[in-house]
């Protein structure tokens, strides 16, 4: 069996959001990933984030590459168009889709093999271009579908299931994303839904390239002693710099934390990011400081999580390119075709 639909029945008392949808309306068919896979928690977090943000499911396009993580878009947002593209190439497909219709929300789902190995180039260039999207890497440090080979985010010295150590330096996706111009960068852990859901919500409300590196242990191939991507290891080394609350229009805005520990960042589109600071000296809008902080903490062996950097006034690719407000896919002949008279003039200039 390769396709498992979920029963359509839902409890009549399930809460509804402003659009009248229940959380079930944001789900998809049953996941075929391994029981306990971190990726399923991320899918659930996406479902909750979209439900809580009152997003019309059909106005979201979900795109992925190849791998376990890239299979997940099947398992959430069943009423959204999805595109499971080729290995490592989700960013280019998403960029093209975004060019065609700037009005949809774009959710790119990828893995560490997909984005840090084969697709490292496309990942990088989509950040540089400021494609308006939420790009989530479900990072487990291994190739799951091909049974446990190291990926490029595996730490040097980390051991695989057979006890063999990884020889290569790890790619730190968040540092790279900040360096390449992503304007919303976060790291989280699939085992910490309270942290993850607001980070996804913030990313979906951000204009510009939003990137979330979500460490998501692979229960089948990378959850053993010696792994640096196991549930236990990540829990032990997780150092959150802040805790995010996303305040949308209909929420009451209350800032009830002690001054100095809470920061409210207003994004370009009006959404508010309320940050409860956990690391006192962390300045979330300071790009250089963020890069510095990440390097220092990495050297100490800490896995820094939370909202690591945001540029609340970021532009996106359409802004840089000055494209028309009307989506390209809604333009017709009258808007696009210069016509016979113009061609006659052109002909005359070519004689």
């Amino acid at each position, binding site marked *: 069996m*390769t*396709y498992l639909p979920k029963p359509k029945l839902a409890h009549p008392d399930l809460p509804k959001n402003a659009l009248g949808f229940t959380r079930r309306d944001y789900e998809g068919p049953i996941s075929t990933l391994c029981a306990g896979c971190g990726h399923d928690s991320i899918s659930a977090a996406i479902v909750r984030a979209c439900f809580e943000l009152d997003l*019309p*499911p*059909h*106005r979201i*396009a979900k795109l992925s590459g190849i791998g376990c993580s890239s299979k997940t878009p*099947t398992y959430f947002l*069943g009423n*959204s*168009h*999805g*595109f*499971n*593209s*080729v290995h490592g*190439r989700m*960013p*280019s*497909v*998403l*960029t*093209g*889709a*975004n*060019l*065609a*219709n700037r*009005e*949809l929300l774009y959710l790119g789902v990828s893995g560490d093999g997909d984005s840090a190995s084969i697709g490292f*180039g*496309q990942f*990088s*260039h989509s950040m540089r*271009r400021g494609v308006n999207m939420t790009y989530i890497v479900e990072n487990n440090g291994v190739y799951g579908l091909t049974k446990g080979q190291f990926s490029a985010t595996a730490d040097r010295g980390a051991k695989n299931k057979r006890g063999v150590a990884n020889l290569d330096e790890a790619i730190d996706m968040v540092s790279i994303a900040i360096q390449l111009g992503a304007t919303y960068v976060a790291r989280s852990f699939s085992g910490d839904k309270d942290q993850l859901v607001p980070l996804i919500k913030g990313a979906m409300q951000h204009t510009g390239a939003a990137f979330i590196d979500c460490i998501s242990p692979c229960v089948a191939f990378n959850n053993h002693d010696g792994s640096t991507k196991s549930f236990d290891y990540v829990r032990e080394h997780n150092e959150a710099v802040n805790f995010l609350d996303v305040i949308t229009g209909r929420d009451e805005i209350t800032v009830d934390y002690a001054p100095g520990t809470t920061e409210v960042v207003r994004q370009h589109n009006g959404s508010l990011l309320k940050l409860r600071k956990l690391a006192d000296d962390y300045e979330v809008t300071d790009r250089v400081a963020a890069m510095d902080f990440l390097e220092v903490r990495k050297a100490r062996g800490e896995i820094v999580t939370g909202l690591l950097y945001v540029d609340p006034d970021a532009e996106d690719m*359409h802004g840089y*390119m*000055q*494209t*028309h*407000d009307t*989506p*390209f*896919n809604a*333009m*017709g*002949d009258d*808007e*696009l*075709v*210069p*016509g*016979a008279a*113009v*061609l*006659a003039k*052109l*002909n005359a200039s*070519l*004689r």
Partner: protein
Amino acid sequence: MSPQDASQMVEAAGSTVPPLVAVNDFVVKFANVNGSGSASANQLFAKAILRMGIPVTPRNIFPSNIQGLPTWYEMRISDRGHMGAREGTDLMVAMNPQTWDEDVRSIRPGGYLFYDNTKALPASKFRPDITVVGMPLTSFTNAAYSVPRERQLFKNIIYVGALSALINIDPKVIEDLLAEQFRGRDKLIAANHKALHMGRDYALAHLPCPLGLTLVPSDKVGDRIFIDGNTAAALGAVYGGATVCAWYPITPSSSLPEAFTRYCERYRVDKETGKKRFGIVQAEDELSSIGMVIGAAWNGARAFTATSGPGISLMSEFIGLAYFAEIPAVIFDVQRSGPSTGMPTRTQQSDITICAYASHGDTKHVLLIPEDPNECFQFSAAALDLADRLQTPVFVMLDLEIGMNERLTAPLAWDDNRRMDRGKVMTAEDLQSGRAFGRYLDVDGDAITYRTYPGTHPTRGSFFTRGTSRDEFARYTEAGDAYQRNMERLLKKWDTAKTLVPPAIRTDAGAATKYGVIFYGSTSPAIPEALEIIAAQCDVVLDQLRIRAFPFGPEVEKFIDGHETVFVVEQNRDAQLRSLLINELETSPKKLVRVLHYNGAPITAEFIAAGIGAHLIPAPLREAAE
């Protein structure tokens, strides 16, 4: 001017070969160094001849280099309208000492050599059977100009002036062209006019004007325009409604997206807001270019990329996805000599096989093959329609010869009543009305299924696109029967494609013949002349069939069936189109005779005539002759 220089001016050879005499029918070749600004002077020269009503076909022959290496600009002047390349040069304008020996060798017996004789050359550097015309260009120019850049640029205009006197180009025509080129910059116009006349006056006073090769005004150009294929294809993409272009620079295709950018900036910017009705991305590589095209087309925008052979290799995985997931994509392949980097600035038709069957697994793709810039324009717009209609990648197969050389071609035409064919797309209204939707469900019997754009309807019409197998409702499956049903539907769609692509054009000889010739793309201009030569030399006529698309329509099979021997003329080593004919039509290979040209230079009528002619002489006679 010293008297000594003047004495060198005419170094006519004491040979028994009489100097060539021709009116409006000869080949002029300029040998230059690239980066010296010669290209615009050469272009001016060609355009002046066109303005006199005489057909000219220029070809740029250039290295993969920006400055300092040899380039040539060859102009075939033919009142008879022959536009194919011709072997040998009648008038060589030798401005590059690096290639002197080769250039002098290429002159036909009785031909002419025009050169800069500022520095004397030993007699051994010349040939006795040509007419040598020397002009002290460098010393003459240096005496008139002191700024180095001016010396270089005006030297080019001075030699155009001298040549205008030598072959009778109307100076008024050149003056007008310069005035058009520098419109609004009167000082520049005056300076160029001055240089033109300096050269002209010198030639009239000191050189044997006119030579045996002369021009007289004609009326053979008609209303044709002068444009290169890449530019025409770019215009076709503007008219075809393309809004997304993603590309990666590669010779000889780069000028296509660059021209698209120019025309979009001209025609697609909202006058009030300055906002653009186009999105052009110079991607990080060809994989990304095609990925963006596929993403944009999936989301309902018309999108294209332009590349050459190496780019097609890189795009192949994505092309398979687009074929299997049924997503429109338009790919311009401006072919060059491969494999690998090959000869990147030389022409070839060697990507036919890779494009026809690009990617792994069972794939077949639609190819449109234009013969000239006018067809580049037409096929470009048609490809965008076809890709949407067939929901599949469509290739437009140019080559360097068509793409990067300006060519006389019929004026571009557009019917204002024409509308983009967006193919089978279900709207929100369709879905709301309760029309059943299965993304891969063939409801019309033509194997083309309906699609929806993302975001169309809140609860209906969404689907999951994937490169993995799925059922008629786009649900993932690894069931063998569902996979096979789908693959068979794709074959049936291929049959539908046969009815939609431009048919091959047949031209019969006018007399019954058992011989046919099949050709395509940039080979086209050399064919009529080749057949004239064959008729004259072998007393044989041939029916012709110009292939314009893959898959082949029934007319191709009929043509082959109707002839005993069919010559297939191609510009590649492996007879790639012939293989497609054999593979797709199950034609007997024995019937299809290869005529193959693949040295990177454009194919010539002489070559085709020799290739075909060798088979027309009955074998015993051929042996006797040998």
